[in-house]
């Protein structure tokens, strides 16, 4: 039964992947004029242009170009960078681990921060902690993340000198340095997530706490903590699981900004650089990888939701 459900979800994911990759690929149509000429610039030699045209597959129809690209992508070959000549998949994989670590820490901050604020806020309604979490919930979504990043750098790096302002150390290399380096970027990235989860979970929890089954729980003699933790949170988390899935995509996208601010060599930074360098094959590759990750996470979210809610029929 569960396998069947899994299979159905996978069948839903495949067309999704096809459509998004087609969208990404068709960006090339947006390039004004002759893409090869635009990408190489005015001074390029005709041979070079012809070579790039062939490399991009511009001498064929867009559909056959897309399928060629897709088949190669499935084989793991995303082409070569127009700018450096490096294989795109190599460049991406090298940097993927970095971005992944950053996003995971930011997600942890968002989820635990959000749960903390939402739960305490429900437990102490209209107390100072409730106001603080509502304030964060409102402000967090309005703060430009790169600006928050700079404020954090100003205070914690330049003023207090506690953590480095830029750079990245992998967790496998040195966990302590990793932690020091990742803190500010992850907070800047996770602030919006914390705010979103706080808002969503708080309203969801408030609603659940006035549900009939919570009243039943009180009539059995449970206290407020038990009511929230045993009966409220699991029900309230259900709609939030979807938010968390969507959030992952947001945060992954936002790495383009945060990695630039903190000079973190992840795929977000790679995306920015490839746009600035007119490195179109690289950009396509990066966007493709990010989208595959987003769709995978949404897939996992669906499964988690089904596991959490006994009412979902597989």
């Amino acid at each position, binding site marked *: 039964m569960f396998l069947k459900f899994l299979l159905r979800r996978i069948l839903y994911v495949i*067309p*999704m992947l096809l*459509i*998004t990759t*087609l*969208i*990404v690929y068709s*960006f*090339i*149509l*947006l*390039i*004004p004029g002759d893409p090869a000429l*635009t990408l190489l610039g005015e001074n390029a030699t005709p041979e070079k242009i012809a070579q790039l045209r062939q490399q991009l597959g511009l001498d064929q129809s867009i559909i056959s170009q897309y399928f060629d690209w897709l088949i190669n992508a499935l084989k793991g070959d995303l082409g070569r960078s127009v700018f450096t000549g490096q294989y795109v998949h190599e460049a991406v994989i090298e940097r993927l681990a970095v971005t992944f670590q950053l996003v995971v820490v930011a997600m942890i901050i968002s989820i635990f921060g959000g749960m903390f604020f939402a739960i305490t806020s429900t437990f102490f309604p209209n107390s100072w902690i409730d106001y603080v979490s509502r304030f964060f919930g*409102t*402000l967090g*979504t*309005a*703060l*430009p*993340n*790169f*600006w928050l990043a*700079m*404020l954090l*750098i*100003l205070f914690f790096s*330049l003023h207090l000198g506690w953590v480095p302002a830029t750079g990245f150390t992998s967790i496998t290399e040195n966990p302590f340095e990793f932690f020091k380096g990742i803190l500010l970027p992850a907070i800047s990235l996770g602030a919006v997530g914390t705010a979103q989860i706080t808002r969503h979970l708080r309203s969801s929890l408030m609603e659940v706490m006035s549900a009939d089954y919570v009243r039943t729980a009180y009539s059995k003699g449970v206290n407020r903590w038990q009511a929230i933790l045993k009966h409220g949170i699991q029900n309230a988390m259900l709609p939030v699981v979807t938010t968390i899935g969507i959030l992952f*995509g*947001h945060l*992954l*996208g*936002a790495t*383009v*900004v945060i990695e*630039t*601010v903190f000079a973190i060599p992840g795929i977000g930074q790679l*995306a*920015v650089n*490839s*746009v*600035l360098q*007119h490195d*179109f094959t690289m*950009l396509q590759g990066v*966007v493709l990888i*990010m*989208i595959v990750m*987003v*769709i995978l996470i*949404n897939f996992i979210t669906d499964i988690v939701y089904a596991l959490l809610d006994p009412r979902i029929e597989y």
Partner: protein
Amino acid sequence: MSFQTIFKRLMSERMAFISFFILVFLIIMSLIGPYIVPHDPLKQDLAKVLLSPNTEYWLGTDELGRDIFSRLIIGSQAAIEAGLFAILIPLCIGVPMGILSGYLGGIVDDIFMRIVDGIIAIPSILLALGITGALGISLWNAMIAIGIVSIPQFARLARGQTLQIRTEPYVEAAKISGAGAIWIMVKHIIPNIAPPVIVQASFNLSYAILVEASLSFLGMGAQSPQISWGNMIQQAYSMINMNPWMIIYPGFAIMLTVLAGNFLGDGLRTALDPKYKKA
């Protein structure tokens, strides 16, 4: 529900009231800004670089001796334009797409919605980046990208609302009495989906301003000497050791505008709610 009632309700929400006036103020600033700025925002004066706030330069000067206050006012133009694009483009493309999709159903619906699902799966800042990357780097192209990025949400919203309204008794009645599809869409569907679309537009304004600032910060929106709050922050970042205050002003302006858009959206949602009750 008349326009006056809605406006009166909106103004009775304290935060929405304040937000409304902040946004009106900003729009006026972006229009008349060039005529009232105390200094030419582009004029460099190397004798007066990195001044602290004083009576002549209210917020001080940047590393090229340009007046930060004047630049902040002109910077509102990019923000307001981004908001405008992010509302107009989806209004002209996304909403009709959604209405058609919801009203016609079938294959049109399938195709449109698969595309929308596909676009929504792409993180919007990344999509904007890709579009700008392809179209070429400029503020104009960034605006177009922001507009395109906003299409799917509006399409989904319009479709959902249309699906709901399509089966209402009064629409069925209109159909039976021989009203054409266009007539029904214009007469019944558009007026009914307007409230949620307006609310979404307000939230989208906020989001667009954030995306524009991000793109300009990354160097993919406003190009110097164009001024945007985003590239003002980028420029200030390079001066972070010398004059940290330069970072504060534009960021604060962005935050305030975004908050205003969000609160206005909340207020509009309350004011446009048919089950409105005075708190």
